[in-house]
């Protein structure tokens, strides 16, 4: 990791949802990471791991009632540092769109269906850059062109339903980059798209990071996308990071049993046929609370009694440095290699 001060440092972020008459839900339970300019940081995990809630918390998009957000997220600005989690709504509105931008998973539901694309793009230019009228429209057309939408002046007059899925996602990216944000959060930006369109969008994001020096937080469940795009990767499980490493280390030498399981679950295009998948047992519902021990222990093939004695800490792995994991009983490489494929019959066994 570079020695420069990070653009955003998130420290012990936690998000707790409270409902009357029900137990509180700790969606994010102490997540820390840093984002640097010109680098892509990945948050990877399955549904329910807290990756999307993390992004909503950073953008200040969670509702006030019934939610408590803890920890800090310090953003470096030219005029001093600010904690995103402590800012007023008004100040946050100024930052969103100008310094911070977000791209959501489903482009159709993030665009207003009854407003033409053009007005949705110029709205940002007017709000944050003070452009209006013809200048705003020209700038909007230029933005659409830059993200690869052909015939942008015609597209500006069209409504979201008239655009294809890939084109809508491009329009959203155009809106996100309209004010050259320093920090961009992309929450599953390609999940709703076909692979050939996904490849186009990922290439576009890669270019933005390289050319503009934007810091990108990439949130995804797809380890394939992560391998091609992210520089640093955080693997999340049940609201906490269980492993963090630069991408080459994570894929070459994963140490946390959950990361190993995730990698073993993906059918690889380049794997020889007939190679069985080695999935993780059970489902996310089989967790225990982090306070009691390792949340992954009930699904782990390699757990010991030590795993259930209090919350495990994030510690450096044997190769040290910036490769850390949250595991008290990591398995050695040799063991991982002759791992037997788990019986699928007992997977997700009935819970009474």
């Amino acid at each position, binding site marked *: 990791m570079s020695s420069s001060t990070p653009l955003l440092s998130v420290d012990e972020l936690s998000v707790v949802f409270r409902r009357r008459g029900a137990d509180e839900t700790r969606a994010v339970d102490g997540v820390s990471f840093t984002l640097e300019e010109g680098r892509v940081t990945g948050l990877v995990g399955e*549904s329910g791991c807290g990756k999307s809630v993390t992004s909503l918390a950073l953008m200040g998009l969670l509702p006030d009632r019934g939610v408590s957000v803890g920890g800090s997220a310090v953003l470096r600005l030219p005029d001093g540092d600010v904690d995103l989690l402590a800012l007023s709504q008004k100040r946050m509105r100024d930052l969103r769109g100008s310094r911070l931008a977000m791209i959501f998973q489903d482009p159709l539901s993030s665009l207003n269906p009854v407003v033409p694309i053009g007005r949705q793009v110029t709205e940002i230019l007017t709000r944050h850059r003070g452009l209006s009228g013809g200048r705003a429209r020209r700038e909007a057309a230029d933005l659409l062109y830059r993200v690869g939408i052909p015939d942008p002046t015609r597209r500006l007059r069209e409504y979201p339903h008239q655009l294809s*899925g890939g084109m809508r996602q491009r329009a959203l990216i155009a809106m996100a980059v309209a004010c050259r944000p320093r920090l961009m959060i992309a929450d599953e930006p390609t999940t709703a798209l076909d*692979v050939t369109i996904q490849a186009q969008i*990922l290439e576009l994001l890669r270019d933005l990071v390289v050319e503009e020096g934007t810091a990108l937080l990439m949130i995804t469940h797809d380890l394939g996308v992560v391998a091609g795009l992210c520089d640093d990767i955080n693997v999340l499980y049940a609201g906490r990071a269980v492993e963090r490493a630069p991408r080459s280390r994570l894929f070459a030498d994963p140490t946390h049993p959950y990361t190993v399981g995730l*990698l073993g679950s993906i059918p690889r295009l380049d794997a020889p046929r007939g190679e069985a998948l080695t*999935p993780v047992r059970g489902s996310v519902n089989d967790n225990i609370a982090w306070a009691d021990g390792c949340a992954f222990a009930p699904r782990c093939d390699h757990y010991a009694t030590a795993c259930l004695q209090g919350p495990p800490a994030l510690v450096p792995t044997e190769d040290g440095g910036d490769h850390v994991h949250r595991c008290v009983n990591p398995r050695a490489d040799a063991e991982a290699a002759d791992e037997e494929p788990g019986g699928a019959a007992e997977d*997700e066994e009935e819970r009474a």
Partner: protein
Amino acid sequence: MSLLRIEDLKVHFPIRQGVVIDRTIGHVRAVDGVSLAVERGQTYGLVGESGCGKTTLGRAVLRLTDITGGAVWFDGRDLAGLDARSMRRERRRLQMVFQDPLGSLNPRQNVGSILMEGLRTHGIGGPDRGGEAPRGREHRTLVLHEQRGRVVQALERVGLSAKALTRYPHEFSGGQRQRIGIARALVLEPDLIICDEPVSALDVSIQAQVLNLLEELQGELGLTYLVIAHDLAVVRHVSDVVGVMYLGGLVEEADSDDLYRTPLHPYTRSLMSAVPVPDPEVEDARERILLAGDLPSPADPPSGCRFHTRCPWRQDERCATERPELRRLEGVPETGTHRVACHHAERILSGQIQPSEERAERIVHGA
């Protein structure tokens, strides 16, 4: 003989316009002349992007969608010509597993009732009374008992227990629901199961569990699968033969290993180069062919080769005027049963034709 043989299958949906007078102003050619064969005990994987007609093809085989033209031979009978009653009877042997397990299970029916429904419809279970009409409470009890036995057996095969019988779909996780969907298909002891995006709604770790389950069941019961999915890696993992669809037509068909080793059709090549591989070294090193633009509308497909508007290898007039047939390569015997629908496949394979950089949006060569 192949268990399932589809010949020149066409499914066209009319586009209607007008309030008082209903006029048909065109057709969406969802499936437009597809021929393929699925061998007994094997898995045929059909892959393609949204809008390519793969789901419609699966539904047409089961006659859940009306067939416009062509034939569907299943075990020697043409399903396309059957009346509704005989088709219903035939469906005992052809079952389907749907993409969205929550949407395909009735939320007001408990699992037992969902699984029993097929058995009741087809009158399966109970002692054979030699043609005599079954009568009386005693007989009904026997039938119910045997049906329950079959249902429990199917549930156990997919890794659930009899406790699930009295519970409702919402009480299960996504992976478990998909298992129920598979059990519902299994309980009728079908020969062919059509799996339409069986794992795309599931988390990766659960995805792998379901894929392994499908393979185990095939080994135990000798099932034949037609797997329809958009994920080439998933399809390649489970299939013996893979067919690639683009805009209503099959553009390439090959043994799953051959397809990966030597993809012949330009569309397959770009599709393959777009599938992310969870390995940074592979990701950095390989060539990526980024296609320009989106899929054309199937209501107004391009003339000639359907892919010519986006094809980086596009050549002469012929690509735009003559629709290529699915054929074996000439003069390249090692490609075997590999079939491709491209006029220039031989010259693309030998490298005589190079992709044009302007037509591919950009071809990114690995570092």
